């Protein structure tokens, strides 16, 4: 039981608010309510142990024992794999508990990597890091569903992302198509977690890690590194934001909805970059690769489908301007010509509207965080223009004073509104 609760109970008994007997009953109740904690801790330590042992074995094997013969080294290469398979087989056949499944699965997953690495080492097989990671993740993929293991899901996500980065950015500089297969493979399990354990901490962590993985790897699917990259990322953040606004997520606290937070931050980040003159200047000379245009079209269509689905289903929500930002940005791209003034003005207007609308959402939800986030967007917009335009110092100064006053006024308005709500609530209670 929490120490804070124990202290509170002592205080209440001392102040004679509750009796000693009631205090005892409350203590007993809370002690019976939290029996899972030691077990889940045991699972975490089991996984950590397996992870450390597995990584240790990989490092020991990486030493390259050239005193042994090739046959001896080959036999040793299969020992960790065999041990891992025995543990996993035992866990499945005896239907052991979560700790057994998580720990044995983690160990086997790493043993697969160790075995392939050692075989490559013994025979000097030249394969690239990308092909090595791909073989590893594919051979370990089935473990995810056989054991229903969360640790395997994490490892699968991390190694799949590493594979996409290696192939797309470093070693081969090719499109990592297999990453999509790896992601499609774990999505049913992720959806299952969202349905059955949406309030679980692990699911909250995944809600952040999965979009992070997409953010890291999207660039690997694009062949050029020019402005179309910004449009692709804008569309991806549009998809995130639209998904994060689905009713399934809206019941949760904001900090647990990685999709919506990352979507919103990403949208704002991209439009801020696009608000600089340099972003638009080379555009009129560029022709885009069909491959990159296809990626952008797929992302824009996906985001539009999700927004359209919400609109069609008349899901209970207010008009949300932020949700359409990706589409407006895509339309601005279509206005490109030799003259870059028009897109520049439109993007600045878009940021201003994003800021205003975020302030409005914050005021409506009585949320200081969202309100100040909206103000921050407008402040950053002004700071950016401070550096790259030739506006008079007086006007710049007035703009800063204006936004400062805006900060005070908006927060004061929200404070007053909350106070008014509290008073009317207490009046209703009295009635």
């Amino acid at each position, binding site marked *: 039981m929490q120490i804070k609760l124990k202290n509170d109970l002592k205080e209440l008994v001392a102040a004679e608010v509750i009796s000693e007997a009631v205090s005892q009953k409350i203590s007993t109740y809370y002690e019976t309510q939290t029996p899972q904690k030691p077990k889940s801790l045991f699972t975490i330590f089991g996984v950590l142990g397996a992870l450390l042992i597995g990584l240790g074995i*990989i490092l020991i*094997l*990486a*030493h*390259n*024992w*050239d*005193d042994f013969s090739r046959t001896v080294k*080959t036999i040793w*290469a*299969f020992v960790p*794999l065999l041990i891992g*398979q025995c543990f*996993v*087989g035992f866990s*499945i*056949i005896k*239907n052991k508990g979560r700790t057994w499944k998580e720990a044995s699965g983690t160990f086997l997953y790493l043993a*697969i*990597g*160790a*075995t*392939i*690495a*050692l*075989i*490559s*080492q*013994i*025979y*000097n*097989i*030249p394969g690239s*890091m990308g092909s*090595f990671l791909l*073989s590893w993740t594919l*051979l370990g993929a*089935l*473990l995810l*569903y*056989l054991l229903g293991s969360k640790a395997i899901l994490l490892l699968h996500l991390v190694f799949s992302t590493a594979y996409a980065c290696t192939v797309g950015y470093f070693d081969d500089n090719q499109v990592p198509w297999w990453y999509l297969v790896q992601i499609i493979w774990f999505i049913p399990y992720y959806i299952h977690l969202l349905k059955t354990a949406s309030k679980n901490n692990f699911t909250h962590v995944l809600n952040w890690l999965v979009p992070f993985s997409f953010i890291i790897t999207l660039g690997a699917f694009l062949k050029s590194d020019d402005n179309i990259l910004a449009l692709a990322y804008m569309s991806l953040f549009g998809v995130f934001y639209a998904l994060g606004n689905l009713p399934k997520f809206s019941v949760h606290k904001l900090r647990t909805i990685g999709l919506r937070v990352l979507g919103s931050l990403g949208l704002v980040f991209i439009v801020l970059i696009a608000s600089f003159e340099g972003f638009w200047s080379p555009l009129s000379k560029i022709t885009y690769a069909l491959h990159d245009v296809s990626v952008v079209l797929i992302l824009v269509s996906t985001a539009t489908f999700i927004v359209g689905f919400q609109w069609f289903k008349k899901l209970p929500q207010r008009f949300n301007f932020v949700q359409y930002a990706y589409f407006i940005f895509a339309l601005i791209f279509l206005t490109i010509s030799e003259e870059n003034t028009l897109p520049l003005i439109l993007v600045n207007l878009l940021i201003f509207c994003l800021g205003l609308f975020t302030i409005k959402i914050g005021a409506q939800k009585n949320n200081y965080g969202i309100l100040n986030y909206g103000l921050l967007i407008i402040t950053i917009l002004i700071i950016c223009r401070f550096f790259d335009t030739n506006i008079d110092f007086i006007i710049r100064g007035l703009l800063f004073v204006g936004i400062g006053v805006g900060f005070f006024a908006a927060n004061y308005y929200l404070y007053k509104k909350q106070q008014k709500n509290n008073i009317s609530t207490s009046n209703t209670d009295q009635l």
Partner: protein
Amino acid sequence: MKKIIYILGFIVMVLAQWFIPGSMIYEQEITLETGTAYKFKTRPIDPSDPFRGKYIVLNYEVDEITAQDLDWNSGEEVFISIANDSLGFAKAIAAHKTSEVIKGDYVAAEVRSYYDGKLHFDLPFDRFYMKETKAKNAEIGVREAQRDTKDQICYAEVFVHEGTAVLDNIFINDVAIKDFAKEE
């Protein structure tokens, strides 16, 4: 019923986890047993891999050939016919787009560039894994030996069989590199 499906799934996974490394070993062993040994003159440098440990990267002297076909793109696969020269070292004879037309031994390589009738290529067997305490010394030892006396020859012994090449060992004047390099 559910348990049977899980057990069957487990058996399939175990078989795959043995089959893939097993087939890797089989292909290499067949080449080592039935393939022809070639000596490729080389020069080692020493990097490392986070999972597979220290290895030396090999830069081969055989890395270009005159090719008439102009249609070569960087990164494309090329099949190089090989044979021994008068000193017993491997040399490239011809470059081919497909392997079916080749009669003798050949290795699959990757096109680096094509310029002025010369096709430059990278041979795939460019990694030789070594004990971590010896890899760096191997590189330094070879460099120093070649600087002191120009007649020091470093070569890789590669077994070739139907396009598969297995790098078996590195020699410096017929001394295996693991014996040549001192431990750190």
